[in-house]
């Protein structure tokens, strides 16, 4: 596996416009090969949708990008950091620049929304000034239109609201890359569309590059600049939504015609 001596050096080896480069990524769980020869590039300020059926390894792919899972083989370069070979402090440095929105929102259910948003600020940036914390929390919540929920508990909110707050919690650290794991899963079409709009707003306001993991065709249509289709763990086809829709690939056709 290719290694780089320092993130700064590595940055120089990365294509100027690419913020993520994944080459020949492989990951198995026991006998089951989940990712098989995945290749993928993410350009600056681009929304890249990774489209695939449930169990095709989409979530595993983005978990490998933030070292929640260790790949068996392949190279993952995120913002110039060679992820599999990072030291704990370098990994922490990278993770501060990558926002991860989880499928189930993953809000800390013992804390209020305010505490949920304050938590990364206090522990990562060492901000303890209550006035500043309050201002930052309210600004982040206003961005997702949920400032009124600040003193509520996650259990008091709907699925769509939780997703928005999950996104606000990642945005509060001003990430350069956003990773969305099934952002519209389990939501009604109207709320899904609102979340899709929010994903586009985040790109425009924060100038982030995003990878959106989904099996929802309307989410892919609404949010994507480019799509990579992950079929049986392999990154088979890449292109815009219309290009993929017109593709003759058998698996892809089945997906789009469903």
């Amino acid at each position, binding site marked *: 596996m290719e290694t780089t001596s320092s993130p700064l050096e590595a940055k120089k080896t990365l294509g100027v416009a690419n913020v993520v480069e994944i080459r020949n990524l492989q990951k198995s769980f026991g006998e089951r090969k989940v990712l098989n020869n995945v290749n993928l590039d993410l350009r600056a300020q681009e929304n890249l949708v990774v489209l695939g059926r449930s169990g095709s390894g989409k979530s595993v792919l983005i*978990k490998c990008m*933030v070292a*929640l899972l260790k790949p068996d083989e392949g190279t993952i370069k995120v913002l110039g950091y060679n992820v599999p070979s990072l030291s704990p402090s370098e990994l*922490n440095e990278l*993770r*501060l620049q*990558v926002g*991860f929105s*989880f*499928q*189930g929102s*993953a*809000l*800390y*259910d*013992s804390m209020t929304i305010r505490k949920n948003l304050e*938590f*990364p600020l206090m*522990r*990562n940036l060492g901000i303890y000034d209550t006035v500043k914390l309050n201002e930052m929390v309210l600004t982040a919540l206003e961005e997702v239109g949920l400032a009124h929920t600040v003193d509520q508990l996650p259990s008091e909110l709907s699925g769509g609201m939780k997703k928005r707050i999950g996104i606000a*919690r*990642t945005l509060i*650290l001003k990430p350069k890359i956003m990773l969305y794991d099934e952002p519209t899963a389990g939501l009604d079409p109207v709320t899904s569309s609102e979340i899709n709009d929010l994903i586009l707003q985040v790109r425009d306001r924060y100038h982030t590059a995003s990878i959106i993991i989904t099996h929802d065709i309307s989410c892919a249509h609404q949010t994507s600049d480019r799509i990579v289709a992950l079929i049986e763990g392999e990154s088979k086809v890449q292109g815009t939504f219309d290009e993929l829709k017109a593709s003759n690939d058998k698996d892809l056709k089945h997906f789009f015609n469903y």
Partner: protein
Amino acid sequence: MNLLSITLNFLAQVFLLDQKTYTYMVLTKALIDVANIYKFISEFFKKAIRPPYEWREILNQCFAMGNRSLFLITFTSFLAGIVFTKQSEPSLSSFGAESWLPSLVSQAVVRTLGPLITGLICAGKIGSNIGAELGSMKVTEQIDAMEVSGTRPFAYLVVTRVIAATLILPILVIYSDGVALMGSFVMVNSFSDSSFLLFANEVAASISYLDIFASLIKSALFGFTIGITGSYAGYYSDEGTTGVGKAANTAVVVSMTFLFVIDLIMLQFLNLIR
């Protein structure tokens, strides 16, 4: 054929495997668990000594753990004091040695009864709570969310809980000893009308500093065991809601078993130095 072999043979048949394969699977899993627990404890010590220290969260956890178990400890310790005194009185009186009752009860309470009652209650209340809480955080990806946002979840969730349990158990044991002795006094008083001062004097005369010190060390070890077992079971629980239940159950069963093992080891050790 010994008992182990019979058991393995039976389990192998239940799971439709030959005994050799089943034994291999059981041994492999046990070895992996031992290695993982060793790694987990090493990680705990590494993170515990390295700043930043999470004093505020440790205090919060101490308060929550103490609060959670206080009522049950009060109730069971008081009853244990009454029952133990009531049970011991006929044996002592048959030798005309009723006056030794405070001394017997106080040694039993301080050396074993207090720490064990408190340990078992805390294994049930604190251990299961830690296992279930961390298990549900794992299942709902909250621990992963902390990990990817760089907020050091191990230090925040595990180190704080284990330290809090280690610190709070000795305090609860001192409290439990006091309550059990109060229960004992109520019973002694009903037999012999002895004054509280006399009872307290006899208790103080029969307990050595070594007894108190050993009891505190033992209860700190109990706390550490409860904290580590609960945290390990929760932090590495299986995915899904059954994983949460399993984590809580493992935390209680394993820590209760270890409490008795620690009690026995401490007893042997104290007998050597006494």
